């Protein structure tokens, strides 16, 4: 069967976080005008607490590279750029074992201080073109005008791995989960994609005995849930972090989140550049103006230029709503 059809029949979704249907992306790139087409594989993995791309690079190197070659052939792309977290340079030799001159595959490691924003796909394109590290205006979307203005297919590493599995009919609708935080058995696990958070914790023998809460989807942008809300499926990048109530202070947790976003902000748009700065400023004051604080959070959610800025709202709001409802003085 044709690969695109197989991809569609398996209802394959992107594993970078947004979950865009893979076959739709392919159709757009195949349809797009432009003589040269590119495949870019996103392994920037800049969200704290997510390690699944690294796991695949380390344990499924050959499968990953086979996936890349299959796609290069299918969409008739000129070149593939493998964009990786700077820490993954330790796998450089291992990866290169599977690259020969018959395919044009280049590995680019993101700079050490490139941060979270480097994994945002249009920012990644800017970095690869030597431009400032910040998101681009969309449209045009990368599928139409991406790397150097050519139609570009961008996939997360896990997505490539899944495409490989689909191509040889081994795809079992599993996904990779990174489990970390205050757990007994941290690590990356491959389990069915439809498992609930509770079941994953059970299967991996990670269900805590103490009073805890969970952040799923990454330690920055992930939603916070209490222990009675674990029937949900894991979102975004598939990470689960366990926090104990005992070791986590509300204020410190919020501060950590705000600092992370403040340091990640590229500076392009007002709500994120100025908003995160003012949020940080407010937290350093003795008396918190929570109403104003939450207005800035709402503003980020509603009006920031890229998904990074908007994603700050979910962990903060869900924390206040689900974890410590008392922690919202006079809202």
């Amino acid at each position, binding site marked *: 069967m044709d690969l695109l059809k197989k991809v569609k029949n398996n209802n394959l979704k992107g594993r970078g976080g947004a979950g865009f249907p893979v076959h739709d992306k392919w159709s757009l790139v195949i349809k797009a005008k432009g003589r040269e087409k590119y495949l870019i594989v996103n392994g920037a993995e800049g969200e704290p607490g997510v390690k699944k791309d690294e796991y695949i690079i380390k344990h499924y190197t050959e499968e990953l590279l086979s996936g890349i070659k299959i796609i290069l052939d299918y969409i008739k792309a000129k070149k593939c750029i493998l964009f990786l977290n700077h820490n993954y340079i330790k796998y450089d030799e291992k990866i290169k074992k599977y690259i020969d001159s018959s395919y044009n595959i280049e590995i680019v490691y993101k700079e050490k201080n490139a941060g979270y924003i480097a994994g945002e796909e249009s920012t990644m394109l800017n970095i690869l073109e030597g431009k*400032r*590290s910040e998101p681009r*205006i*969309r*449209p045009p979307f990368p599928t139409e005008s991406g790397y150097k203005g050519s139609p570009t297919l961008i996939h997360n590493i896990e997505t490539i791995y899944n495409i490989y599995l689909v191509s040889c009919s081994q795809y079992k609708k599993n996904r990779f989960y990174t489990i970390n935080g205050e757990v007994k058995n941290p690590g990356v696990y491959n389990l069915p994609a439809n498992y609930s958070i509770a079941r994953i914790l059970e299967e991996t023998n990670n269900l805590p005995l103490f009073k805890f809460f969970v952040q799923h989807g990454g330690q920055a942008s992930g939603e916070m849930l209490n222990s009675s809300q674990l029937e949900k499926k894991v979102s975004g990048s598939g990470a689960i972090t366990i926090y104990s109530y005992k070791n986590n202070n509300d204020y410190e947790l919020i501060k950590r989140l705000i600092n992370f976003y*403040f*340091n990640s*902000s*590229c*500076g*392009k*748009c*007002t*709500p994120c*550049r*100025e*908003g*995160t*700065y*003012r949020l940080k*400023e407010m937290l350093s004051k003795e008396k918190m103006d929570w109403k*104003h604080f939450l*207005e*800035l959070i*709402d*503003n980020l*959610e*509603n*009006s*920031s*230029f890229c998904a990074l800025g*908007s994603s700050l709202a979910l962990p903060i709001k869900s924390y206040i709503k689900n974890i410590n409802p008392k922690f919202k003085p006079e809202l």
Partner: protein
Amino acid sequence: MKKFYIKINNKKILCSERDSILNVARKNKIDIPSLCYHPDLPVKGNCGLCLVEIKGAKKLLRACSVKAKAGMEVKTNTAKVVKSRNLNLELLYAEHINKCSTCVNSIDCQLLKLARKYKINASNFPKRKTERKTYKFANAVEIDGSQCIDCRSCIDSCQLLSGIKHLELKGKGVKQEIVPKGQKDKLSGLAAKKKGFACIYCGQCALHCPVGAAQEQDQISEVETALKNKNEDELIVAQIAPSVRVSIGEEFGLKPGTLVTGKLVTALKKLGFDAVIDVNFGADTTTMVEAQELIDRIKNKKPLPLLTSCCPAWVRYLEYYQPELIKYLTSSRSPQMHTAGLIKTYFAKRNNISPDKIKVVSIMPCTAKKYEATRKELRFNNKDLIDFVLTTRETAFLIAKNKIKFNALKNSSMNNILSEHTGAAAIYGSSGGVMESAIRTALHILENKKLPKIDFKECRGMKGLKEASIKIKNRKLNIAIVNGLANFQKIVDHIQKYDYIEVMTCPGGCIGGGGQPIPTNSDIREARMKALYNIDSKKKLRKAHENTYALKALHYLESQKIDKQILHTTYSEKKK
């Protein structure tokens, strides 16, 4: 193109898929604010003020970057929009250290206008940019980081309109800052020069800055002091450039292209100027000198193409970036310098006053004219010919500051020996105007008879590069007009194709100059341009050499054997 309807605030509007929501709204008089959007530049989507709610979208969207789609339902004033837009405006306002009372830009400041309109509470956030530097470029332009709201329009204007990559963004997040290139390296001055980037002083950054962070280095208080402390035996004269008369009215709420020469003369007299002199007079002498040089170069097989030199930013560009082309520049000084030279010689003699007792203040559409006035090559008897240069904006600020009700002023005429001009001079303020004027006169000389054709429409208009081939006697004159310096790159590799090239750094020529009223856009520039061609078409005399007063002045210079010094200049490579 396919047309369809969308709804904005329940109003049905016909549009096409090329239109952004912001453009559709503004065309239909639905107000959507923005600070980073500028019609001359690509869409950036930075400021977060043009937010709208679109049915079906979860987030608020930026009207500047969303294209219209059939059936789209847009709301511009929902509670959610108002809340975010006002908060973003408040955040931007807290970036900007107000200097409104002395800020030339306060007349045009879009941030101030929006803050008033939306009643922004300025005290919610403490100002955060108190420590920012001001970068000064010669005596022409400056960028004050403490007023910058990070819209980045200055960078785009520098790069895309003028083709100079002098400005860049350094740093990340709240630390980002607009800096001149080379500042990255700590040895700032040296590094900047070594790296080969320099400002050409055109002021397009200032013209496109919504908040006056990029601005002319103003000389208002210097001019005020000079006027106040004037001795009885002294004269202070103002000389006004061709394009200012059709633009300065905008600063007082008049429509773009309103001709206000008479009111401007009255206002300047009220401010204390003893005489108002027309740079159009000097434009006629420039045309004659330049046309003569063109003919000389053609007849004597000297280097061609001849390049115009009226635009000091263009001259600076060549001297710094492409010194190998200097030999093509006309030796003629610009109208500003011709006029000033005539004031200090011919005018002084006729008025029986020592040139040292005359102070000259230029009223210019341009920031680079400030720099031109201080060029060593343009001195006479080892002295600068011009004391101060005010932009159109500074002049308006000075008039407003002195509580002169401009629109209610009666007209006055200049009425002196340097105030007559032909139609050819009037169009100097427009891209193609210098070329057209020079051709009118050059053809007359070459053909040695009265020329029936006066209008050379191939020189006119807003195109970035205008090319034509004009028949003269035994040959063809191949001309090119570069409208906006960035367009010079289109012909730089084959300039030998042409006999004569006019270059104006600013889009539209001086009517789009870096010292002109804010805002600017193509409609405004076209209205100003049209007004200049109207002056020309209504003039009885439309060729520079028909200006008998100017001919007389030139004879005077020759008789005194100072024609070379007053009318011509030299250029040299400026160090990288």
